[in-house]
């Protein structure tokens, strides 16, 4: 068992801010969709719009951070160990097999994560942000009048945004569950809070749940 530094301070700030905003967007968004009543429709709309702007600012800062620090390289997809990583979740994890990849500061994402997060960044988030902005600004006030972006109707925009919201919640469910698949049940969580993660020693076959030696 050793501890390695994985998540830098900005990264952790970004992650938890984003987690909070996504939670808020989900709660308010589904209230706006009419799925349940929580804050009240008007409050939900205001919170949703403010959280959306905050998230966009966060995304801009984070994109800047990715490029200036070179962290964007973490998301370069790789086929190496992709199959092994998938096999780990399907079978290895039950047999207490070791993680097929090793987390380091320079390579903190496993091959599956690389693929999923790249998809999130270049496809999912742009679609949600674009549909959200269209939803927000398809009509907008300017100089004492209401202007329009010329969308014939809001319907397709709203459908895409809603569909995306369901996918987002599904992602979060899996994401939250996968927190527990680190070296120990909580090692991933601790890492995202402190930056330091406990990982397996070389040749250590002990997996997450076999933690008597802890």
């Amino acid at each position, binding site marked *: 068992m050793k501890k390695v530094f994985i998540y830098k*301070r900005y990264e952790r700030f970004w992650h938890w801010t984003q987690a909070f905003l996504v939670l808020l967007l989900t709660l308010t968004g589904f209230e*706006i*969709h*009419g*799925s349940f009543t929580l804050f*009240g*429709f*008007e409050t939900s*709309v205001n919170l949703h719009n403010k959280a959306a702007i905050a998230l966009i600012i966060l995304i801009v800062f984070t994109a800047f951070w990715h490029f200036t620090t070179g962290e964007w390289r973490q998301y370069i997809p790789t086929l190496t160990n992709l199959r092994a990583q998938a096999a780990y*979740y399907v079978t290895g*994890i*039950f*047999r*207490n097999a070791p993680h097929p990849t090793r987390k380091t500061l320079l390579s903190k994402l496993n091959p599956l994560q690389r693929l999923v997060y790249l998809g999130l960044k270049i496809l999912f988030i742009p679609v949600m942000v674009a549909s959200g902005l269209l939803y927000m600004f398809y*009509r*907008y*006030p300017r100089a*004492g*009048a*209401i202007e*329009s972006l010329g969308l*014939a*109707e*809001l*319907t397709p925009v*709203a*459908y895409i945004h*809603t*569909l995306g*919201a*369901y*996918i987002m*919640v*599904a992602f979060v*469910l*899996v994401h939250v*569950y996968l927190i*527990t698949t680190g070296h120990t049940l909580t090692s991933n969580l601790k890492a995202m809070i402190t930056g330091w993660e406990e990982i397996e020693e070389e040749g250590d076959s002990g997996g997450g*749940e*076999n933690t008597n030696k802890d």
Partner: protein
Amino acid sequence: MKNIVTFVLSVVVPLVIISLVLRDAARENTLLAELKEEHARPHIPSVDHSKHADLQRDFDNPHEITATCLSCHTERGQEVLGNAHWNWEREAYIEGRGITYLGKKNLINNFCTGIASNEGTCNRCHIGYGWSDNSFDFSNQNNIDCLICHDNSGLYDKARGGAGYPVPGLDFRTITQSVGRPQKENCGYCHFHGGGGNNVKHGDLEMALLNASREVDIHMGVDGGNLLCVDCHTATNHIMLGRYYAVSSENNQRATCEQCHTAFPHLDNKLNEHTVKIACQTCHIPEYAKVNATKMYWDWSTATRREEGLPYQVLDSLGNELYTSIKGDFHWAVHAVPEYYWFNGTADHHLLTDPIDFEDLPLRINTLFGNYQDHGSRIYPVKVHRGKQPYDTEYNTIIQPKLWDPEVNRGALWIDLDWEAALRTGMEYLGMPYSGSHDFVETEMFLPVNHMVSPSDQALQCGDCHTRSGGRLAGIEGAYIPGQTTHAAIDSFGVLLLLLTLGGVLGHAGIRFVLHRRRNRAPAQ
């Protein structure tokens, strides 16, 4: 510790300062304040008619009064002869019909069907003297009744069944010396009583507006704006702003909220954006008939019943007629909730000559045009008056019955209680055929609601429409209404996706848990 201080100073403090600077300062609606100030100034008449030499006399002939008015207001007669208050018809283009000349003169409505053959009583509300039948001279200025609109004494009154003539014995010296700008009482004399009684027809125009609170009508309420009808329904050369779409067809000359409040009336821009598709009235008139009941349903088919050989009537606890032998069955509503329709300011009308489409019932006496895709359309609150009207089972057209006559056995339904005679006589008067067999068809008429605007704190709130079920706009098609509109496939897919994900996660966790326990137990054995 040093890092935290640096973070607070470099990130948090600037963000707080930026937010404070960009925050909207609390604003006041200056437009409303200006309007209130403008309308608080009293109207000062430029003329005191009691000082006119020509009016220092008694009159006994109403035509003579008109001639006296016109002796000074020399051009006003010609103006009035050209307007719709006088002619009860307008030239209008209607999509699918072309140029039409329609109005109260020749259109049918869902109340007493129409004025033809009933002018003696209906035309008490004409701004003229003596329109008792087709022979009325619309070109004679001296037939104009100036007083019904301009009497400010409150003494003027038109006779029942008098075809517009005043009741005998009025104090015309006082009346003529009082004339001035039309008051609520002048307009209300006719417009509050459409359909045969107070608030029967419109639902948002009634006697209670003469002395209403601001909760009933923020504009006309005596403790509200205390406005007159003519403050909004302004006139140029006797042509007034205002359209009532049971008789109007075109999108012009309308009295609008925007003429005072502008198209950008709210401090909240989200609400201003709503004005593109939602008429002001929709949110600001959450209910109508706030004081007295209005008629919602009129079934002519049950008229002419007798009890022990005599006509009778049934009243509800508030004194509203539920049944009368001369008119049939009624439903009433008080604090009525409007229905909502797309409307672009143009309308069509079902004419007496139009065949009834039995595939498309109830028959729409008037049709409000509009839909989501049409940029001129907005959602309006509408009173829908439903009922049953007589039609010719052979010609499949609506029939205009004769309802009223001063004498018996002249075919008037209200006098003789004989449908066949009334229908035959009415159509004879119009010079139109009647086959001799009739039945009743379901009809509806659409009356946009424009009055009885509530104080802003009583306007509809977001959740009144943005709700999954039972929202005010549940029947509106075309628009995506957040909170109400759903796509069944998307929601089904979404819920299924979440259930599968949750199942997968729990299944995976369950297997891990079971295997982990088995593994931990094994060495102990």
